[in-house]
């Protein structure tokens, strides 16, 4: 019964998370803290903070955390499946429909313009993230290195992620951080 309500609650969070990220906090707050009482506001912020700085999608990470707290490992898995369930249904439907209409000129025009909007949204996302991440010279150098290398060379992002995690540790040990 508890597992079912975990699944349903997180499916609801999945449906209401439009675009992900910060938009999700008020929805989690209402569903998980106020309605179900599965976690306190402080715990939620902790989960969210850790979910943000661990690999993977933040919404999924937060769901796993709360699910685990409520119902152990099985709870963690059920809550996570709940949060991705609406995406699976909705995206599959839309993708199926779009595939059939993709060759219509109006649809093509619409998507050409939407692509422009996507570029602007990515640009805005980068600017927003920049403020929290590039605070000193060391971080700026890492940013420039990764940016230039990944634009001009065909290197897997995995390599950059591993090297930069190591670089972060080395730079911090060397005392470069914060200067």
């Amino acid at each position, binding site marked *: 019964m508890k597992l079912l309500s975990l699944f349903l609650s997180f499916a609801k969070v999945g449906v209401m998370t439009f675009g992900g*990220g910060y938009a999700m906090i008020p929805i989690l707050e209402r569903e998980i803290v106020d309605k179900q009482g599965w976690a306190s506001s402080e715990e939620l912020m902790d989960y969210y903070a850790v979910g943000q700085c661990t690999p993977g999608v933040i919404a999924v990470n937060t769901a796993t955390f709360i699910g685990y707290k409520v119902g152990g490992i099985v709870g963690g898995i059920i809550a996570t499946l709940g949060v991705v369930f609406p995406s699976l249904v*909705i995206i599959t439907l839309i993708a199926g429909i779009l595939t059939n209409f993709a060759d219509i000129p109006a649809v093509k025009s619409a998507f050409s313009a939407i692509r422009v909007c996507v570029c602007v949204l990515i640009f805005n996302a980068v600017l927003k993230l920049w403020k929290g991440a590039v605070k000193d010279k060391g971080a700026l150098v890492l940013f420039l290195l990764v940016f230039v290398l990944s634009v001009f060379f065909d290197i897997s992002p995995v390599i950059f992620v591993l090297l930069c995690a190591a670089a972060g540790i080395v730079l*911090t040990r060397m005392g470069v951080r914060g200067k």
Partner: protein
Amino acid sequence: MIFLRLFWEFFKTGLFAVGGGMATLPFLYDMSTRTGWFTQAKLADMIAVSESTPGPIGVNMATYVGFETAGIPGAVTATLGLICPSIIIILIIARVLKQFRENKTVDAAFYGLRPCSIALIAAAGLLVAKITFLDTEALELGSGIAAFAGLFRWKAVALAAVLLVATRGVKALKKLHPVVFIAASAVIGILFSF
């Protein structure tokens, strides 16, 4: 074995994409060039759909790519691949949450990871911008000012300028959800036959 490859590719994405939905973008871009499962233009369309539909962007993109590659079973496989590392990592961390948050090495690693993640997103964004704003075929047709002017898709450049002002400069519009701008762009695209 397409399903195994899909699962593996998205497992890697889930394991190494740090910092939320957009962080999966460089991995999807890399996937598109290596596997040929979808074109880069298609990737931009998928971002637009993922931003304008319910659900976390990263999950939506995985489902979309999976569906494009191998139908409904593909969608399920890619999504499960993406969330698998999250489940494993979080279940481990959940037991030692406090120590993890206060661990100096973890904190130091993230000092390096954050600028890396943004740089990767910015680089992938630049490549999306290239196919959106440049008509690379124009360069091969001629040289000189005419060819240079023909290189840019001017309608796209104009729309980008309008959107930049709207999303960054106008206070009343700044807080609006991205879906509003995506929908408005779609209408403009149809009206001005982009």
